[in-house]
């Protein structure tokens, strides 16, 4: 619930900033996005060896990593390319989602 609210707040703010009365653009929930992440990062049952697990990942660290990858401040093999798809709000929502898993 908490995560969804963050996504919504983000959208509302964006809409307000542009002063539009149009309906908020549709955005996937953090849970919907996060289900893509587990394909490589796994739930622990999947037995990944190298890729960091995301369950219970500290929220602050995830925000730092994801924004760092996105903005080119942190080196990565692959996450730099993926992180560019997300807004600050979505990253915060993902961080909150995984922190409580």
């Amino acid at each position, binding site marked *: 619930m908490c995560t969804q609210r963050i996504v919504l707040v983000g959208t509302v703010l964006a809409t307000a900033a542009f002063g539009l009365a149009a309906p908020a653009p549709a955005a996937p929930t953090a849970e919907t996005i996060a289900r893509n992440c587990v394909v490589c990062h796994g739930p622990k049952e999947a037995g990944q060896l190298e*890729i960091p697990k995301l369950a219970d990942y500290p929220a602050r660290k995830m925000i730092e990593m994801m924004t760092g990858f996105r903005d080119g401040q942190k080196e990565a093999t692959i996450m730099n390319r993926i992180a560019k798809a997300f807004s600050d709000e979505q990253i915060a929502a993902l961080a909150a989602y995984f922190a409580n898993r």
Partner: protein
Amino acid sequence: MTTRRTFLGASLGLGATLALPNLARGASPKVVVVGGGFGGGTAARYVKMLMPAAEVTLVERDKQFVTCPFSNYVIGGIEKMQTITHGYDKIAKRGVKVVHDEAVGVDPAARKVTLKGGRVLDYDRLVLSPGIDFVWGGLEGYDEAAAEIMPHAWKAGPQTVLLRKQLEAMRDGGTVIIVAPANPFRCPPGPYERAGMIAWYLKKSKPKSKILIFDPKETFSKQALFFESYENLYPGMIQWIGGKQGGKVTKVDSKKMTVEAEFGEEKGDVINVVPPQRAGRIAQVAGVADEKGWCPIDPKTMESTKVKGVHVVGDACIAGAMPKSGTSANSQARNAAAAIVAMLQGKEPPEPSYANTCYSIVAEGYGFSVTAMYSATPEGIKEIAGGVSKLKAPPKDRDLEAAYAYDWYRGIMYDALG
């Protein structure tokens, strides 16, 4: 309420009671999934997980699923068939009813699927993830009999083993020919990963041999990364003849072991033909495929735009910017499952989030990737952001990405059939 009514009305085009017989009777909703691969396994598993009350039936022809992902590593000799062979026991334990049979008919008005063995299954929502069929004869001289001599190995299983055996039997100094197809086809980086893996084997065992890739295309997936890796790892061994150089093959001859290209005729000791493709036969039978053989879908729900109540995921569907990959199929199926559950509950389907990642390994410890995130737009599925691995990356990055490929494999097999 309005959205619900509009939604059901629009999507069913029939009276809701007629169209959802099981729901109307208060029975548990029935979801049938055809095809127990990356798309179908994932769809079945997620519908059951999100809606435990649903009766989910997975129809799969084969007792075991042999994955195309990692089959190139069997061909190159760094993996065994056992690694890529999976059963359906785990997904069955999750409450999905697994029926080993072939779906041969779909009646979308009556909402019934007919199986070869004679059974008829009712559904409220149907998912088709049949993967691809080959267009036999689409390339002159290439039919099912020719495939026993010039393997495609584009559906994993006995064909994978056949190609490996032919490479093992080949003399040193032999020529391996790979015939790559035009777009669209299953696994855009696949032929070029395969060339790398075959070179990996040849370099160690038959270093005087060479590999020719005949290709009608002028560009292909991760091209610069593949060329860089061939240069680094196998200098002089792999030659790519693209569309501009006359690489389009017009005919193959399995008796003479030749391919005829615009470039000229070439004889091979081992010839691997990746033939033209279309959506699996059941998609054609169900009426969800277009004249080119692929299935248009609603980007938000993966529901067929041609036949209501039928969702098409994976290689069979037309998914805009998404490549035909196992990861794409898995992501499409997960989002389709969420849409299906919402529809069965009379709710608005949630906004989807699609992703793809494809790793290629061209030598032990040498991997790279293409990845992207996608969203549903009224014009189709569009890329939000993504890209390929850096060129000239340090060896440790290539090594890491090869290890990540293995983690991806563990993760996706768990998400699809585990």
